[in-house]
């Protein structure tokens, strides 16, 4: 331990390791169980994110200012107005628009509506900085079905989401708006092709296109309820940008930072479980083989000789392909083929220890075999074993990453390798989705490096001859 912290690389490695552990614990606590299948692989959850958007901080280096995704939700202050026979609830969302481009999309999501007799109406109006306003969209919640009893509940299980940018009704509303305000005749179809949001957040540039109109917008969402007990649970209005969050998104709009964070505990789990179990088996078999000699030794030696020489990756690929993509299977295989290498090393160490007189001396004292093996021989191999354990940790992480990269990762647990693979498969390398490719790779390298640094600090323990030189 002292050796570990006395060198520079040991200190850096230890600091990194602690950081890895803290992040992993945080992720385990914060993330829902079954994250991989229920959340990460569920496209509905990511629909409101822009797709393949680079990180928002790229704006700092870009001459053109990209729009960051803005999400407005019905949680803030609302204005309640009483009208004859109805209640009007008005949400005003203020948006200071400074980007040099139109939103990539806009969407409205409605959830948990319940009413007694008349279906509520929800309307979206955009009030622009030029004082003009567009009645963008109106939703009349679907009416009672035959035989259905009040209260009528709508959009509880599946929220109602409408992509305003692609909605024909919106297009026609905007078309009308352009006609009236700018005397610009443009058909609904053309508008849908050009992008409705360009017109909503811009002014015609005279060339048949639109120029972004910067300034303060207010998006007003009106909800009209016809009964005291009627309610609209949740409203969400999203202005989709072209940059997103800390680490951007992938083709499904998934927030890469969320997926990458989840990779921490998984990588640590793969690395540590594999190395700990491998080291344990390797050490025990090595000590037993070296100490007992005879038939036990021959059997262990032959088995480990053969297993240690099998090229791991092809077999790993084969098994993962044929038997199934399961993280535990992968770990099991890594262990099954990982221990023999250590067995061979430990065995030769034990033989060397045996060549001294300690074993004979202890035997003369009447010590049992297990006492000699684990009280006397094991402590002498322990520093080496510990260093090997650390050194073999990145190998397991890298092996899993490689396998994931070939598309053989466990789909229920997103790993860095899998994220990289989907980036590669989606042509990220050839079109330059660097934010999708670099961070997962970098995280793999940093995690592997952490253990390599620790191992490096332990090298003098393992190789005393080098210590003599320095």
């Amino acid at each position, binding site marked *: 331990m002292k050796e570990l912290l006395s060198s520079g690389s040991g200190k850096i490695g230890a600091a990194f390791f602690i950081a890895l552990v803290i992040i992993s614990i945080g992720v385990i606590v914060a993330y829902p169980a079954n994250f991989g299948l229920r959340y990460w692989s569920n496209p509905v959850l990511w629909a409101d994110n822009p797709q393949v958007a680079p990180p928002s901080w790229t704006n700092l280096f870009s001459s053109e200012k990209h729009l960051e995704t803005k999400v407005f939700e019905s949680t803030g202050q609302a204005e309640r107005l009483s009208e004859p026979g109805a209640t009007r609830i008005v949400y005003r969302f203020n948006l200071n628009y400074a980007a040099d481009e139109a939103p990539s999309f806009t969407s409205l999501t409605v959830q948990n509506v319940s009413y007694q007799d008349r279906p509520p109406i929800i309307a979206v109006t955009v009030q622009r900085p030029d004082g003009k306003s567009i009645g963008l969209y109106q939703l009349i919640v679907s009416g009672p079905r035959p035989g259905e009893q009040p209260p009528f509940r709508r959009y509880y299980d599946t929220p109602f989401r409408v992509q305003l940018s692609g909605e024909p009704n919106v297009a026609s509303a905007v078309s009308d708006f352009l006609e009236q305000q700018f005397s610009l005749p443009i058909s609904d179809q053309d508008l849908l092709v050009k992008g409705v949001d360009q017109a909503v957040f811009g002014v015609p540039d005279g060339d048949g296109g639109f120029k972004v109109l910067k300034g303060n917008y207010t998006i007003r969402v009106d909800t009209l309820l016809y009964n005291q007990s009627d309610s609209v649970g949740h409203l969400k209005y999203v202005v989709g940008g072209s940059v997103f969050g800390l680490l951007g998104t992938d083709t499904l709009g998934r927030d890469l930072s969320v997926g990458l964070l989840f990779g921490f505990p998984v990588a640590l789990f793969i690395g540590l479980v594999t190395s700990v179990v491998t080291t344990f088996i390797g050490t025990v078999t090595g000590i037993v083989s070296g100490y007992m000699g005879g038939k036990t030794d021959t059997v262990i030696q032959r088995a480990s000789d053969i297993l240690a020489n099998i090229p791991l990756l092809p077999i790993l690929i084969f098994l993962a392909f044929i038997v199934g993509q399961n993280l535990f299977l992968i770990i099991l295989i890594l262990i099954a083929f990982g221990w023999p290498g250590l067995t061979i090393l430990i065995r030769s160490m034990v033989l060397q220890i045996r060549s*001294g*007189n*300690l074993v*004979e*001396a*202890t035997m*003369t*004292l*009447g010590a049992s075999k297990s006492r000699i093996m684990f009280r006397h021989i094991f402590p*002498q191999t322990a520093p080496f074993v510990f260093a090997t354990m650390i050194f073999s940790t990145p190998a397991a992480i890298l092996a899993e990453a490689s396998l994931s990269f070939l598309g053989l990762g466990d789909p229920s647990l997103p790993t860095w390798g899998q994220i990289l693979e989907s980036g590669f498969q989606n042509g990220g390398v050839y079109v330059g989705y660097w934010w999708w490719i670099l961070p997962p790779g970098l995280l793999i390298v940093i995690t592997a490096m952490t253990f390599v640094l620790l191992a490096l600090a332990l090298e003098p323990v393992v190789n005393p001859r080098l210590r003599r030189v320095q």
Partner: protein
Amino acid sequence: MLVKRRVREGEGEEMIRLEDVKMHFTVRKGLFKTTTMKAVDGVSLKIGKGEILALVGESGSGKTTLGRLTLRLLQPTSGRILFENQDITNLHEAKLKMFRGRVQAVFQDPYSSIDPFMNIYQIVEEPLVIHRIGDEKERREHVYKTLEDVRLTPPQDYAEKYPHMLSGGQRQRVGIARALVLNPEYIMADEPVSMIDASSRVEILQLLKRLQETHNIAFLYITHDIATARYFSDRVSVMYRGRVVESGPSEKVIEKPLHSYTKQLIAAVPEPDPSNRFRERSVVETGSFDEDDADLVEVEPDHFVAGFKK
């Protein structure tokens, strides 16, 4: 000269007896060929209670293997090993534990024969732990007393130290203390001083000698150095190629060696005498002894030589 006990073979009580013991090892030669290495090839010897027997020979003579056999660390290919007239040749490992409590060993290399990860106290205490002797307090007293016996004094100063903090001589004394703590009746000492500085060798030998006198311990002193054998032992057995070629009381064998190999061993010992440089030492080429396979003959009372023709 320290007082020597004159024990004629067969006199007094017997500690350990080997009867025509052979130890053969199989060595791989070719792909399928194996040959037999006869490390010990028919040796009989006795060690009486409280007697020091020196086993002298060069590397490869089988003296170390023979030493291991007297402790039953090895099971002989043939022959019998008796401890206090009880046959322990084929005793199972579990039953040997009692025997292990009564015989001990001191090894050549004080660096590799004690556990570098234990402190001195733990090393010396270990035999007591293994044999479940005494409670913690009794053990502590006994360990301290033993450390004093081997002159690691005051014991408190040494108890917490680790082997690498001690000099070679001190480490060897730790090895002796560990062998001594069970109050053994027999100790096999395999080259106990060959890796220790010349100026300290005699100190260790004197310590062993005193222990033999105060505790009446029998010793098998294995060495290549016939000069220390003369000083330290009551009797000497000379080994050559797995066999004993000459044995008898130390003075007799050394002052009047009969076997040519013994003679050569003696001639090869350098004496600090500057006139030596004007003459060559007599050297017999190894492999030129023709009496290898001959049996031991009692040439004079208690002095045995292989293949001696009167």
